[in-house]
């Protein structure tokens, strides 16, 4: 029977933002690949058995970013470090990244001089160390999100917006929102390939109107995320299978900035930017979202 000298199972998800001043912040999330993964919480599961013949187990998906906001006109600039390490699955993943990010919103006004829609752009350049294959390379991502904010007829196209009014009787069943990101990705080193990327996320909040009675309209959450890419220039042997993630769980808001919850998620596919080879796995994790400052 295996014995454990020290068993640490950290099974939590952290999304952390700390505003040091009006111009600087620190944030932790899942990945800086695009705006969707940036808003997701980071995840860490680690097990350290006593028996030295048994390897430590890891599932870590996260980044930490120090960002200067509004540095120039509408520009945010950040420095990041990112870790994607998973030896709990059949195909091991161990990637460490360092890089820079630049964000800018392009605003489009209507005849009343009001913002009608915006394009949220995010560019990042990362030095990537793939510690499983011993390869080092440069990566880059350019992501765009079209955010329609003022439209009567195309309300269903508004991202990050509650699309069913909570006062409607339909909200007894659920409310929902969606988000998307399209862009380009470059993987250097031996690969030297330019990829086209597209991501879409749908979030459903069942029984939203009922849970809103206790001021928890997002208590129950179901999320579906699909992320596809295709080579535009060059060829690569990296797995490019479409990545799908489905998760369901509870999320209790402690206050405007912090929440705790539990979530079950299923993941199938590959992610070339974090060197996640094509595979399928499930996780059950507790969640903690903290914002300090």
């Amino acid at each position, binding site marked *: 029977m295996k014995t454990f000298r020290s068993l640490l199972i950290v099974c939590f998800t952290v999304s952390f933002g700390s505003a040091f001043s*009006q111009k600087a912040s620190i944030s932790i999330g899942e990945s800086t690949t695009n705006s969707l993964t940036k808003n997701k919480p980071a995840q860490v599961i680690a097990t350290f058995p006593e028996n030295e013949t048994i390897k430590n187990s890891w599932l870590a998906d996260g980044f930490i970013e120090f960002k200067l906001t509004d540095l120039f006109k509408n520009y945010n600039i950040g420095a990041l470090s990112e870790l994607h390490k998973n030896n709990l699955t059949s195909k091991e993943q161990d990637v460490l990244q360092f890089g820079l990010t630049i964000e800018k*919103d392009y*605003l489009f006004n209507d005849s009343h001089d009001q913002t009608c829609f*915006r394009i949220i752009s995010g560019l990042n350049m990362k030095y990537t160390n793939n510690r499983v294959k011993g390869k080092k390379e440069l990566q880059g991502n350019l992501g765009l999100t079209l*955010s329609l904010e*003022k439209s009567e007829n195309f*309300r269903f196209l508004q991202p*990050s*917006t509650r699309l069913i009014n*909570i006062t409607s009787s339909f909200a007894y069943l659920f409310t929902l929102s969606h988000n998307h990101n399209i862009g380009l990705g470059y993987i250097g080193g031996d690969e030297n390939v330019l990829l086209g990327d597209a991501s879409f996320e749908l979030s459903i909040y069942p029984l939203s109107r009922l849970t809103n009675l206790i001021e928890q309209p997002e208590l129950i959450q179901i999320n579906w995320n699909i992320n596809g890419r295709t080579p535009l220039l060059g060829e690569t042997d990296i797995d490019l299978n479409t990545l799908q993630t489905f998760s369901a769980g509870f999320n209790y808001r402690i206050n405007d900035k912090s929440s705790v919850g539990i979530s079950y998620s299923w993941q199938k596919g590959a992610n070339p930017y974090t060197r996640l080879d094509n595979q399928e796995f499930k996780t059950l994790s507790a969640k903690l979202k903290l914002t300090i400052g």
Partner: protein
Amino acid sequence: MKHDEVAAHLTCHNKQWKVDKASDEIVQVYVYQTLRIMKIEFEIEEKEAVLLLKILQQFMGQTNNPNVLKSLSKIASEIESDFQIGNQIFLLLRTRLYDYTNHNVMLPESDMRIFLGMSSNFITRVGGLEREANIVFIQIVKNNKPDVDIRKLKQIPLDEIKKCKLISDVQEIIQSAYENIS
């Protein structure tokens, strides 16, 4: 206690005291009322302010003392002025944000995301709610303090606006910025 110490001690209480130095003891103390202007600031809920205003108006109707009447009317008119500015801000916000709220009925206590269905990007990113709030702020200053040079006004920062949950939160930030103009 010596005279100087007594005088210093008494001065601490914001009153002017005169001590007869001819004798070793304090034989007579004169108290002068000063014309010091006091700035009283405290926060109360709007419904409490309405109640306070009613009570002040009731007292104003009962008193025969012109000084008391003057003092009460000063406080009452200050409260009424706050109400008036608050209403102006709300009406401007309602007009400016109408198309961003999917034509839902906007009230001060409306939750912007949950009830009005406003976009999170609009609320939390530059050029959205922050821009509209600053337009309303400038308009309020132009309407009520025409002498102020609006080019020198300090803009309401995005960090304050993106924390807002209710319309009344935005209203309060604008009103606070307006009241802080020297």
